[in-house]
């Protein structure tokens, strides 16, 4: 009962000291708004990454083995030459493996008369299309015949096709790679740029044999893509692959792998890790800004109490206990903090919405900021309100009634 009356008095106090209320609210509002935006961006990135991984052609039953030790996309040795077509053949012999795609990769200039562009050239086998499940926009994919006869044919992704041919139809045209001409036999369907700026369409494909004999003049592979029969068999398949490759590469028991795996889970984990690191930093920043907000509340409340000494004295004269005064000012600080929180969430949501709307950053709105800000604001109000409130309560009523 008493608690509600003091709450009422606090509301009245806030209403009557409007400018102080607004100033106190601002500090918290900014902190909470940034917190809201951060959470929304974090969730947005996670959501997009999930869909991007699905787009990368990594079905849950496939993974890649890349030459060179290291982790995921980072290798320590650039020129590992140990992985060969024989490795790929041995892997295909595994009972749980459905498809194996050995690959060579080279970034280079590709030229159509006066037009040229830099792109990634992959030497692959015809199974590549099956493993990726990538449809053709026009023409055909590389055939077994192209592979065995080391034909100089090329399949273009949407990006190099656009850059080299503008509005023309590239089908059947000749392109130059180094000193050889290749005929365009097919066009891949466009996938579109991912949020991280990775362009899956920026690629061209030629037969692996052609790549080895005419382009790279090397026999070792960049990577092998392995598709298992079933996603549940991926872990055991990876282990079997590891054993075969270690044996083929004559690695001693103590030597570390000279190859590394890329799996959908691995990518997800990496993305999550970097996102968490970013999130931690941003949350630190917004916590600091919330602390600043709290200190603003405390300072303004202290000033406000000095202005309201007489009011406190009057209340004490007519029977307010110290605890009543404490409660009233605590309520004021908590209410102001919550008000700031509500406005901050509102502002944060608007910003998040705008970021998504104008394609700046992906955002995803959840219940999290609402709960977080409610908890944070109540705490801030209590922690930073207690000192001013106690100070108000312990004013001498006799002196405060006389103050001007």
């Amino acid at each position: 009962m008493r608690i509600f009356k003091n709450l009422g008095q606090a509301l009245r106090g806030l209403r009557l000291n409007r400018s102080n209320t607004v100033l106190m609210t601002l500090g918290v509002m900014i902190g909470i708004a940034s917190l809201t935006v951060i959470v929304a961006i974090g969730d947005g990135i996670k959501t997009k990454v999930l869909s991007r991984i699905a787009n990368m052609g990594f079905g849950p039953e496939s993974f890649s083995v890349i030459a060179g030790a290291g982790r995921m996309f980072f290798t320590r040795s650039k020129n590992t030459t140990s992985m060969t077509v024989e490795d790929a053949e041995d892997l295909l012999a595994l009972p749980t493996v459905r498809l194996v795609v050995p690959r060579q990769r080279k970034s280079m200039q590709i030229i159509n008369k006066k037009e040229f562009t830099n792109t990634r050239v992959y030497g692959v086998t015809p199974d590549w299309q099956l493993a990726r499940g990538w449809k053709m926009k026009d023409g055909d994919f590389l055939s077994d015949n192209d592979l065995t006869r080391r034909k100089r044919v090329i399949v273009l992704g949407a990006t190099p096709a656009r850059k080299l041919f503008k509005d023309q139809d590239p089908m059947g045209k000749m392109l130059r790679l180094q000193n050889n001409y290749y005929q365009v036999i097919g066009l891949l369907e466009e996938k579109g740029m991912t949020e991280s700026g990775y362009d899956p369409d920026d690629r061209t494909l030629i037969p692996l044999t052609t790549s080895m004999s005419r382009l790279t003049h090397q026999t070792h592979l960049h990577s092998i893509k392995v598709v298992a029969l079933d996603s549940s068999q991926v872990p055991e398949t990876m282990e079997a692959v590891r054993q075969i490759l270690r044996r083929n590469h004559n690695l001693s028991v103590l030597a570390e792998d000279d190859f590394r795996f890329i799996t959908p889970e691995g990518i997800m984990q990496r993305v999550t890790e970097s996102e968490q690191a970013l999130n931690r930093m941003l949350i630190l920043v917004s916590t600091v800004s919330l602390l600043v907000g709290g200190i603003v509340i405390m300072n303004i409340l202290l000033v406000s109490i000095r202005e309201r000494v007489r009011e406190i004295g009057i209340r004490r004269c007519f029977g307010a206990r110290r605890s009543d005064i404490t409660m009233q000012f605590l309520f004021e600080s908590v209410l102001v903090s919550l008000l700031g929180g509500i406005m901050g969430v509102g502002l944060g949501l608007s910003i998040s919405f705008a970021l998504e709307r104008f394609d700046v950053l992906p955002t995803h709105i959840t219940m999290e900021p609402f709960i977080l800000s409610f908890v944070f604001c109540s705490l801030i109000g209590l922690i930073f309100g207690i000192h001013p409130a106690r100070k108000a309560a312990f004013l001498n009523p006799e002196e405060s009634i006389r103050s001007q």
Partner: protein
Amino acid sequence: MNLIEMNSICKSYRNIGFETRVLKDVTLHIKEGDYVSIIGPSGAGKSTLMAIMGCLSQPTSGEYILDGEEVGKLNDRKLSRVRNEKIGFVFQAFHLLPGVTAMENVTLPLVYAKNPPGNIKERARELLAKVGLEHRLHHTPGQLSGGEQQRVTIARSLINDPRIILADEPTGNLDSKNGIETMKTFDNLIKEGKTIILITHDQEVAQHADRIISIRDGQIASDSKVSHEEQIRSL
């Protein structure tokens, strides 16, 4: 029975090592229904005496029994309750909450009452009507004249139905017409059985009381009954 019983009250303030003795051994008894004026020049200790009487501060030494209860040693909680239930304050500077309507100002003591009555608004309206402000219920202090503001404070002092009205220079900020009005209100309250203690330095105001206590240098200089004839003469 004495409603207020002060025995050898001393009050001193310590300030940077100096001790100022404001009240020196004040002994004072006031009966229920008494109409008492406390007069004295400024600095004599009137306000300090009132603060102790009103339970706003505690005596340094001595015994203060209010309505049979030794209040000198009560904790904040109990002391606040005594203020809330037994004493109604009227101040020279009115001390109304700014920006708050007359109605709400009058009901302020009930915010802190232990058992507030159910018909709070009704009571506040009645009291404001009694002081002639039934047309000013929803005005804030800034919209009221000095006289009206003082009448609001009187209504506020009465809302908890206290036994003692403590008025500190109630006419000090008023013109003579409003001053007379205010004093009439007090004169009427005596008839209702309230105990009124007026603190003033105005002889004319003091004459309204039945008993005048004069304070000088923190001590009671004189304590005299005012005869009826004298009262009439002074008017």
